[in-house]
């Protein structure tokens, strides 16, 4: 076709394109698959300081799950996961409903509720650790104001410290739930609401019967994403309590780091990482199934 040019073989001509398509995609896909298998493999070996081959069956897993560190981390994750997800979704929903009332300065308010998401957990965790520190923050302020019997020492209280992480995490990410809920509220069919109003339904009734039920799919999405975040929480705890006091605010992600890089128990660290993945799958697989059923229904409707 192109006269006057030496014809390059087809595969040479197409080489740059093939490289550009395949190299990044293959690197990305291959590292995900091979790294996951690698970590799973190490979790079954007796590796300590360096990875070694060998097979110890489930020994690393039983050692991890039997350790006090992991048991506390797992209990904390259950409590933190549930409390954080429920409270941040509720806060996000309330914020979204308030912002949906055609109020002035909606854009400014939305920006205020969302800004923590743009900042590192290291930064926000540090700031919260000051505010919650009884000798520096809110308790000290109230004491200085004269109310000396006031007590707010969750940060150093073994039973309450995990709640400080819940508080900081809610502050950090309920803006995200708000953004999704707000999009959902704005997409409710205005005609149905008009019709209900003509029928004499009040605002509370309209919210309860029409608007909130239509938010279910968004609620599920919010819950799953926040749970995913809760399971891998690391930076926030590291900056806020560093797992303390003692190991009272330990979470699985900190246990993995501790085993791998502070105690050099690679096999056990890998086993803990795989356990984290299993917890995540326990959340994601039902969600994927639910999404699949929803999509099937949408197709057949």
């Amino acid at each position, binding site marked *: 076709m192109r006269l006057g040019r030496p014809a390059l073989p087809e595969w040479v001509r197409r080489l740059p394109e093939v490289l*550009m*398509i395949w190299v*990044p*995609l*293959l*690197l*990305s*896909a291959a*590292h*995900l698959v091979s*790294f*996951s298998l690698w970590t799973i493999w*190490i979790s079954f070996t007796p590796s300590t300081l360096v*990875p070694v081959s060998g097979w110890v069956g489930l020994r690393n897993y039983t050692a991890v799950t039997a350790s006090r560190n992991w048991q506390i981390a797992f209990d904390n994750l259950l409590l933190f996961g549930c409390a954080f997800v429920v409270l941040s979704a509720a806060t996000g929903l309330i*914020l979204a409903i308030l*912002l949906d*009332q055609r*109020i002035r300065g909606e854009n400014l*308010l*939305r*920006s*205020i*509720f*969302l*800004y*923590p998401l*743009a900042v*590192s*957990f*290291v*930064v*926000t965790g*540090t*700031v919260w650790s000051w*505010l919650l*520190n009884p000798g*520096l*923050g809110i308790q000290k*302020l109230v004491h*200085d104001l004269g109310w000396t019997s006031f007590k707010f020492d969750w940060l150093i209280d073994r039973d309450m410290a995990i709640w400080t992480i819940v508080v900081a995490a809610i*502050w950090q990410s309920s803006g995200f739930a708000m*953004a*999704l809920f707000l999009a959902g509220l704005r997409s409710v069919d*205005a005609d149905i609401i008009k019709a209900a109003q003509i029928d004499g339904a009040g*605002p509370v009734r309209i919210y309860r019967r029409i608007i909130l039920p239509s938010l279910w799919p968004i609620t599920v*999405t*919010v819950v799953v994403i926040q749970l*995913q975040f809760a399971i*891998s929480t*690391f930076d926030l705890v590291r*900056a806020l309590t560093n797992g303390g006091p003692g190991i009272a605010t330990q979470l699985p*992600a900190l246990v*993995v*780091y501790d085993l*791998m890089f502070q105690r050099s128990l690679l096999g056990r*660290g890998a086993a803990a*990482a*795989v356990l*984290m*993945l299993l917890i995540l799958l326990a959340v994601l697989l039902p969600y994927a199934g639910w999404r699949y059923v929803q999509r099937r229904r949408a197709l057949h409707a």
Partner: protein
Amino acid sequence: MRERSFAPSRIFIYLAVALIAAAWLAPLAVVVLNSLRTNEEIAQGSMIGWPQHLAWSNYAAAWSGFCVAETCAGIRPYMLNSALVTIPATIFSTLLGAIAGYAVSLWRFRGDNWIYGIVTLGLFLPQQMRLLPWTIVLRDIGLINTLAGLVLIHTIQGLSFTTLFCRNYYVAIPHELIRAARIDGAGFFRIFWRIILPLSGPILIVTVIWQFTHIWNEFLYGVTFTTGQQQPVTAALIALSAAVADIPQHGVQSAAVIIAALPTLLIYLLGGKYFVRGLTAGAVK
């Protein structure tokens, strides 16, 4: 959309949002005020208080005089590290993601759905599953404890997000446009430069903001793969708060926290709309 009469009481609504907004701004206000107070002033009262006179020197100390782990150059070198990691990794992962997204959505090739599916698994896989392999790979290729190593990690891992963003945007481009260009003899790259890129403005802004924010704020890889002078600013902040645990320097620390947060806060202020778009695009897969 909603009728004004919908609200039971406007005053109650305004009061509620004002209170919550104040609570949301309080941590930022506290850290800004503290960055202007002297250490003695904070030690006498609490972390919550008005500066008696503005101690701007905290910023100078945090930027270039403060000691973090033996060296006394403030957080300036660590800010530079973060920039040297974040800027290239953001550019590479965005460009490669745009090409990959275009390839899987419009160019199509054998196995594209499969490989796209595997790449998006990266959105879910916990970082902890990749820590050990990355350590070994970085050591073997000689990039452990280097900024280049972090750039490599963030570029490859970022592809999951950037490919997803771009692919979801490109599927809306009519296939006829590509088909017509191919009939006219345009190849993969010519179509990308001439047709796809000029249409990509909005999604590239979203992707760049998203990647920049994520990579700048990242901490786990920073502490795991780098030490001392090579660490990004997030890791340095933690080292700093450990270093001053004995002699509290909250004024300087507050200034350091603000400086470290400034790049992403500025991006959020300038491109908030696109940031939110990235959030919701990442959420509704």
